[in-house]
């Protein structure tokens, strides 16, 4: 009757990474290794002003003096930083004014990803910036956005065309020396997205960046900077994939969000980097620093669906500096096979009447380890701060682990903090009930997992929610509790 667990396991193991293809694009890649010369070369290649070069060099010297962090609940072979190439750009410089000039191979890549730029453009009206390996290759809808005064371009362009904004805000939320990987990124980032929404402007469409690591032996170090000026609004989407490779690839991004008074930033991520094969070989190391700062009455909302990467280490955070500001974190993290995820958030309450909400759903299958790690800190000045946290874990099978490490530090008596966590499994009775209604076990699991994750899925913009649901299904195919 139905599947045996063995059959299901086998099926799951043989399931291949759907996005595991490699695109033949001529690319120009720097020699491996990292030293001051490489940092200078990256900066020079991009024709950067001196302040930017100096900033990078400063970050590099800080990084050299730092030690790789050891504290999170993940085990992995540390990357050899001298074995990575820090710059890889598709060789044919695409003309950013027209999609027709983009390398056709590259466009095929996006077709395979199911995100043909053209289609996106027409159907969903999403403005896209596409970063392959390290370089931004195409930004759509530029003109429409320009009319509203919205700047949406690659960070390299922003450094050239809007140096005053970049200089003012880069590193203002995440200082160069914040942590090991942030320092590394600050030294070697080669591209990323930049977005500025002027005062009072509600961005009329979702802004989106798609990241892809293509070239072998490269690391991706993109840098994203989003500035929402007073009373503005933006919803920003970020998607990630990488081809399957035997070796581990490093992705160390930095994302900084600045929400000025009364502004709102919604930042959604669907992360599907290559997770490694069923034996745990290969896969992306995803060591990301994401943080936003909220000024008076502003709001930052992080939503993430993390299904990929061999090792994920990320804590999108909010510094609630302004009075009455709001921080939100909604997360689904799925781990299967040998994946490890250590993810969560930090909500730093500084202003009065600040509020934060944390909803985290962890789903572990195979031999994976899934940890929630979060900090809620109420400073002595944060009068009437409120936090609600809920961390639920779903375990599938008996070889995986689900862990919860919340840190709650309260220094103001008027605070109200609630934290709840539960762990459960998919019940056999639930599966049988679905079976009896004609729904097979695979589909039943997808349905139950979707139900479990619903509070977070609901937070995603429509176009992403569908993709995210599909990803959840793919990531968990065949794993039964």
């Amino acid at each position, binding site marked *: 009757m139905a599947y045996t667990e063995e059959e299901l396991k086998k099926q799951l193991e043989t399931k291949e990474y759907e996005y595991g293809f490699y695109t033949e694009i001529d690319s120009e890649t720097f020699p491996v290794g990292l030293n001051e010369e490489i940092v200078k070369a990256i900066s020079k290649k991009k024709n950067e002003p001196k302040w930017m070069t100096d900033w990078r060099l400063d970050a590099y010297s800080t990084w050299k003096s730092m030690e790789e962090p050891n504290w999170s609940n993940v085990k992995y072979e540390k990357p050899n930083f001298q074995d990575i190439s820090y710059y890889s750009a598709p060789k044919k410089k695409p003309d950013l004014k027209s999609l027709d000039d983009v390398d056709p191979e590259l466009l095929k890549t996006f077709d395979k990803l199911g995100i043909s730029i053209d289609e996106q453009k027409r159907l969903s009206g999403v403005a896209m910036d596409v970063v392959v390996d390290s370089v931004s290759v195409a930004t759509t809808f530029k003109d429409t956005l320009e009319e509203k005064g919205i700047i949406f371009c690659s960070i390299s362009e922003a450094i050239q065309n809007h140096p005053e904004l970049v200089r003012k805000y880069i590193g203002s939320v995440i200082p160069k020396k914040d942590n090991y990987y942030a320092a590394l990124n600050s030294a070697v980032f080669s591209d990323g997205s930049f977005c500025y929404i002027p005062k009072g402007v509600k961005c009329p469409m979702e802004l989106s960046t798609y990241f892809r690591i293509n070239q072998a032996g490269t690391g991706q170090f993109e840098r994203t900077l989003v500035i929402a000026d007073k009373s503005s609004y933006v919803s920003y989407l970020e998607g990630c994939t990488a081809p399957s490779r035997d070796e581990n690839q490093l992705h160390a991004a930095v994302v900084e969000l600045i929400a000025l008074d009364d502004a709102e930033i919604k930042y959604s991520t669907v992360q599907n980097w290559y997770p490694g094969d069923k034996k745990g070989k290969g896969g992306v190391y995803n060591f990301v620093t994401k943080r936003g700062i909220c000024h008076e009455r502003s709001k930052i909302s992080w939503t993430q669906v993390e299904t990929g990467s061999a090792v994920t280490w990320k804590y999108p955070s909010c510094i609630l500096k302004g009075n009455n500001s709001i921080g939100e974190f909604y997360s689904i993290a799925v781990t299967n096979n040998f994946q490890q995820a250590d993810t969560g958030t930090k909500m730093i309450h500084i202003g009065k009447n600040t509020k934060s909400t944390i909803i985290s759903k962890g789903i572990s299958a195979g031999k994976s380890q899934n940890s929630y790690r979060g900090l809620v800190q109420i400073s002595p000045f944060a009068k009437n701060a409120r936090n609600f946290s809920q961390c639920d874990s779903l375990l599938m099978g*008996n070889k995986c*682990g*689900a862990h919860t490490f919340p840190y*709650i530090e*309260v220094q*103001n*008596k008027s605070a*109200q903090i609630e934290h709840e*966590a539960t762990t459960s499994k998919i019940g056999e009775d639930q599966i049988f009930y679905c079976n009896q209604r004609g729904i097979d076990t695979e589909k039943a699991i997808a349905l139950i997992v979707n139900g479990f994750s619903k509070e977070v899925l609901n937070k995603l913009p429509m176009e992403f929610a569908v993709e995210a649901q599909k990803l959840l299904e793919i990531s968990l195919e065949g794993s039964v*509790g």
Partner: protein
Amino acid sequence: MKSHNMSFQEKLLDSFIAFEQDVDLLNPIHKDRKDALKRFEELGFPSKKDESWKYTSLKSLVQKDYNLYAKSETNVELKDVKKYLLNDIDSFKIVFIDGVYSPFLSKTTHDGKDICVLSAALSKDKYKKRIKKYFNKVVPSAESLASLNTSYTKEGAYIYIPEGICPEDPVQIMHFSTGSQNSIWLQPRNLIIADKGSKIEIIERHQSLKDHSVVTNSLTEIYAERNAFVDYYKIQNDLKTSSLIDNTFISQERDSNVSVHTFSFGGKLTRNNLNFYHKGENIQSTLKGITILESNQHVDHNTLVNHAQPNCESHQDYKGIFSDRSVGVFNGKIIVDKIAQKTNAFQQNNNILIDNKSKVNTKPQLEIFADDVKCSHGCTVGQLDKEALFYLKTRGIPEKEAKALLTYAFANNVLESVNIPNLKTRINSLIANKLGVNLGFDL
């Protein structure tokens, strides 16, 4: 680089030779002592860098110097200590004055059970086998403070309840510090064994008789054999010049039931390391606590329940109320091993902050490796319910009493599981006393 003054840590290491003059070097446990000293030498005192000491610093304590022994004989009479004992019930008593056993104040027995002192058990052949079987077996070697205690093992309570025996009277283990020395470091070591189907209730208290600098690094091992019941109550209401590091390690065999209640009202710095290890199925473990602090008191509850066998249950419920500049820490860890299917593990930590200078750091952790389990933790930080407070005041109850009433109500469900009525009354009056009220309802 050696500092001019010998650090206390060095003093502990150096004084061991003198300590050895005083104990039986041929006793097999002496190897445990020596090994433990070595480990302490390697590990040193924990620092804030250790994840489990993130919110509690021992620095100010261990930077000072302490005497390791009391000044000769101290004259303590029953009238001096009576008020700290539960007198209105029959009980066994094991009383220590400055770390030294006081037969005069104690009531021990060897009649069908052993309720006596460790030094006696160590010195007699007939206990050798049992001590060898149990001593230091549940204490993990990586714990530096536990190692320190082990290395200086000499005195403490020894309790053995044989199979099927259920003494009606509880045991009171009392540690008094007289202040004969300006500063003293005490390290009592308790060994408690409840054999199959037996039952025992124990009340433990550390108390200074006058203001002086005392640090107690206490270690208690509890072994609950199959189907044994152990009910352990810790009363921590010491003077504000006293600090306590309480290390309790509990090993449970199948069908056993152990509960530990910790009432923390007094003391300067208190750290409770409470660890449960499961060795069989169908085990029940209960960890409950009420913490009420003021001024600059600091209490850190560091709990571990390691579910290593299927079909076991654990319940944790800690309530904290913090005023003035006091700091409360709750660091509770539940580990569910791969084979521990059908585990039910629940943890609650609720806190109320009364003043703006008071702090709460709480870190409830779940580490789950089995899928068919029910585990949850909840934690809250908040204030007394303003609406409820208003309601009470409209009924004519003054603010202070109303607050006390609500605080009491907040903490009350922890008291429900206290099985000794006289003890419950005593705790109630300690709470009322701590809250500075004379409540007009039945406490």
